[in-house]
């Protein structure tokens, strides 16, 4: 039992905005009052619900492929020294699994959503998540290029497609459905792409990317999954791609969707020499669509590695950078590309990207619908979130940073004109309350009675980057893990998995197809429930 007393509590889900009050914890949950509890004096500190990352890549075959590709970056990475509490590891742009848990918790984040899992290698993803301590985990399964689903869509068999989708979510032990470059990655299996929503898809004759987007979003809503379709739109990264993004928003026809890393989908111009920010247009359209949420996918300057299921984009990035490139296509399901990358302020395209990530966070008016991410590790490593928070809260710092941007780029971005500064309460929304709500995790992201006792306590300070980098206390599931800024206790996280209702006979349909097109036995395909560490099954109401 625990009482946190004297701190200013920021709990926007319960309309508490910097009020000095107690947070009481018992049995891993927030309770109304406790007797004879250990008391943490949080005077002079702020109390936040634990951070929730709605979109990150911290585990899985693709990320692990990336780890193998960048030993030169690991040599620069922060070492995590083995101790009686901690397993050895490395930080850097793709932290090792144990390090990932320590680093997230060390920043006050207690829940993460691994955003891209193929079913075929989901067992491996869960092995990695098993070795990622402290934080609770969810993951999204990749579906927009799943050939069994695409074949059903092509044949117009939507009813069966819904049962297959539900079966696949449970087979992967996933929490949500992810769509990456719908149709484009399937086309990449023939070395092609599908950039526009009406483009043909190599290997298919009827369906278009637009139909896949609309169809998947509808199926997810019909299955009443707690998290909407998690969508990485077509035409990522390309100058002028804002038109594709706007069209995608229309195509969704009022179905729910979470648009991942919107920064990468908000460019004007028509080639790399005149790429510009289109965040005003996009934010205006987004503000008018209450069915949508998004995350920033902000970029920070420095070295990182890009990892995505968007195979054709990564091939283009390889041709642009001439750097290393790894590609790993997953049979019948998805692709994956890895390219190490350095974002430089002197590069006009990178400078625009840096500005657009911040612009979207500043221009989207409802903080409940836009969340803090860097699409880790694509825009920057997750442990750099405090830098983004400082850029959002501190106008003077932002103006200082703008001095590094080339003059010719300043005309193509609107960041210099924006004067909005985030409040602490708004930061609590975009880092915790909002993403928890978007994920449908009703017991996360707030400090009301009954909520999971995931709490971050920060020293209140004018230097917000420092403040959010080094929480004074972090409590996970009622256990104090960070105390006086040090890791003092390592607890296990849980895995939230959704089991949507489906017709069991769908297995009879899948089995022969599977034996024909895959290279493993059908019975070996689904992830056994025992493989998910701390399994928590969520069953949506039918």
């Amino acid at each position, binding site marked *: 039992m625990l009482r946190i007393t004297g701190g200013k509590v920021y709990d926007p889900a319960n309309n508490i905005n910097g009020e000095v009050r107690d947070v009481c914890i018992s049995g891993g949950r927030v309770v109304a009052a406790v007797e004879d509890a250990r008391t943490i004096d949080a005077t002079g500190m702020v109390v936040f619900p634990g951070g929730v990352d709605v979109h990150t890549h911290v*585990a899985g075959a693709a990320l692990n492929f990336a*780890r193998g590709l960048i030993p030169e970056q690991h040599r620069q990475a922060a*070492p995590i020294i*083995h101790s009686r509490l901690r397993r050895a590891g490395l930080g850097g742009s793709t932290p090792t699994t144990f390090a990932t848990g320590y680093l997230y918790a060390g920043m006050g984040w207690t829940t993460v959503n691994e955003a891209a899992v193929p079913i075929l290698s989901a067992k491996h993803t869960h092995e990695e998540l098993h070795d990622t301590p402290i934080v609770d985990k969810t993951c999204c399964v990749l579906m927009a290029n799943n050939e069994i689903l695409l074949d059903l869509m092509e044949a117009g068999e939507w009813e069966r497609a819904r049962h297959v989708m539900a079966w696949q979510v449970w087979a992967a032990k996933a929490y949500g459905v992810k769509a990456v470059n719908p149709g484009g990655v399937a086309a990449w299996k*023939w070395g092609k792409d599908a950039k526009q929503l009406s483009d043909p898809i190599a290997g298919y004759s009827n369906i278009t990317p637009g139909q896949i987007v609309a169809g998947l979003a509808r199926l997810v809503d019909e299955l009443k999954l707690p998290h909407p379709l998690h969508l990485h739109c077509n035409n990522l990264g390309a100058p002028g791609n804002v038109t594709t993004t706007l069209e995608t928003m229309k195509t969704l026809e009022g179905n729910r969707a979470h648009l991942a890393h919107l920064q990468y989908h908000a460019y004007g111009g028509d080639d790399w020499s005149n790429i510009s920010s289109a965040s005003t247009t996009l934010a205006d359209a987004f503000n008018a669509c209450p069915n949508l949420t998004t995350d920033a996918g902000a970029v920070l300057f420095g070295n990182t590695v890009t990892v995505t299921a968007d195979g054709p984009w990564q091939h283009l990035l390889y041709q642009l950078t001439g750097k290393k490139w790894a590609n790993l296509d997953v049979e019948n399901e998805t692709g994956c590309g890895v390219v190490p990358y350095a974002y430089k302020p002197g590069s006009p395209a990178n400078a625009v990207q840096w500005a657009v990530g911040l612009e979207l966070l500043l221009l989207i008016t409802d903080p409940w619908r836009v969340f803090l991410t860097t699409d880790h590790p694509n825009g920057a490593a997750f442990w750099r979130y405090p830098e983004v928070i400082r850029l959002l809260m501190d106008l003077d710092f932002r103006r200082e940073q703008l001095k590094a941007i080339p003059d010719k780029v300043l005309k193509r971005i609107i960041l210099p004109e924006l004067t909005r500064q985030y409040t602490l309460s708004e930061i609590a929304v975009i880092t915790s309350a909002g993403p928890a709500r978007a994920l449908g995790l009703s017991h996360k992201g707030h400090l009301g009675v009954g909520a999971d006792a995931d709490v971050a306590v920060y020293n209140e300070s004018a230097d917000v980057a420092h403040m959010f980098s080094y929480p004074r206390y972090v409590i996970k599931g009622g256990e104090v893990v960070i105390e006086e800024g040090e890791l003092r206790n390592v607890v296990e996280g849980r895995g939230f998995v959704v089991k949507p209702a489906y017709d069991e006979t769908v297995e009879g349909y899948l089995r022969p197809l599977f034996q024909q097109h895959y290279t493993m036995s059908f019975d070996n395909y689904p992830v056994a429930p025992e493989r998910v560490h701390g399994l928590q099954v969520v069953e949506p109401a039918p």
Partner: protein
Amino acid sequence: MSCTLGEVKNRADLIIYWGGNPAECHPRHFTKYTIMQKGKYVPNGRKGRTMVLVDIRETPSAKAADLFLQVRPAKDFETLTILRALIKGRRVDAAAVAETGLTLEQLEDLAHRMKTCRFGVLFFGMGLSMTRGKHMNSAAALTLAAELNAFTKFVTMPMRGHGNVTGADVVMRYTTAYPFGVSLSRGYPRFNPGEFSTIDLLVRGDVDATLVLGADPGATMPQPAIDHLARTPTIVLDPKVTHSSRLARVHITTAATGITAPGTVYRMDEVPLPLRPPLSGPYPSDEDVLKRIVAAVKRKPAWEPAGV
């Protein structure tokens, strides 16, 4: 630029094996994954695919090939580099071509096949990756495959063997960030092949004791490394008697994973497969033994000062 084996089965119309002898070393490769299978987009199976074998000698795999190209030993890097030039339409030096043991016509024909296939795959074996040139050869093969993607779909994959070596590589990467050759002696992972790789450590005599798990270094490593294993305490966990267990101070008999113990094995394309034991046996699994060793070590007084 790789893929899982099902992509090869469903799409590949050009399959190249280089420096490997799958007919004898990976006998199920042809039948389960590559040339013999009918695939979603290769409905005619073997008839719809072309198989090219590149090696320094005519192995039994050559019988399965449509085209066998015999390169001179230690000329793989040169041959791959000439192919890279031909693919880009560059002129190549006749003397350099002559050294490979192949004619310009043969190389041009192969380059043409690579550029014009629908989906090509290059599997490379230890005849490429472990002979003179080593990682430079592998790098040349990977670069060739990467560059071919400017023309068509092309992937490449090493033909890995030795039990669950891929699984070991995968787990090392997510726990330490590196695939092999890792030292934890400073409390965090450091990577330096040649310094921290097993053979080098043993040959230099840098290690006091060795734990051998799922491997038989006594059968495969150079003699000075084996001598050091015999000289120092070596502990072997293995279901059977091996060269290594014979020279070990301690041999703990463990259950055979997949026969009497469950587990997970990673295929060469990094796809994990669950193993379900059909039999039960008297021996503990590797995992059980290691957990008991770890627990026993934990009971010893800590070397670290309190509070670290």
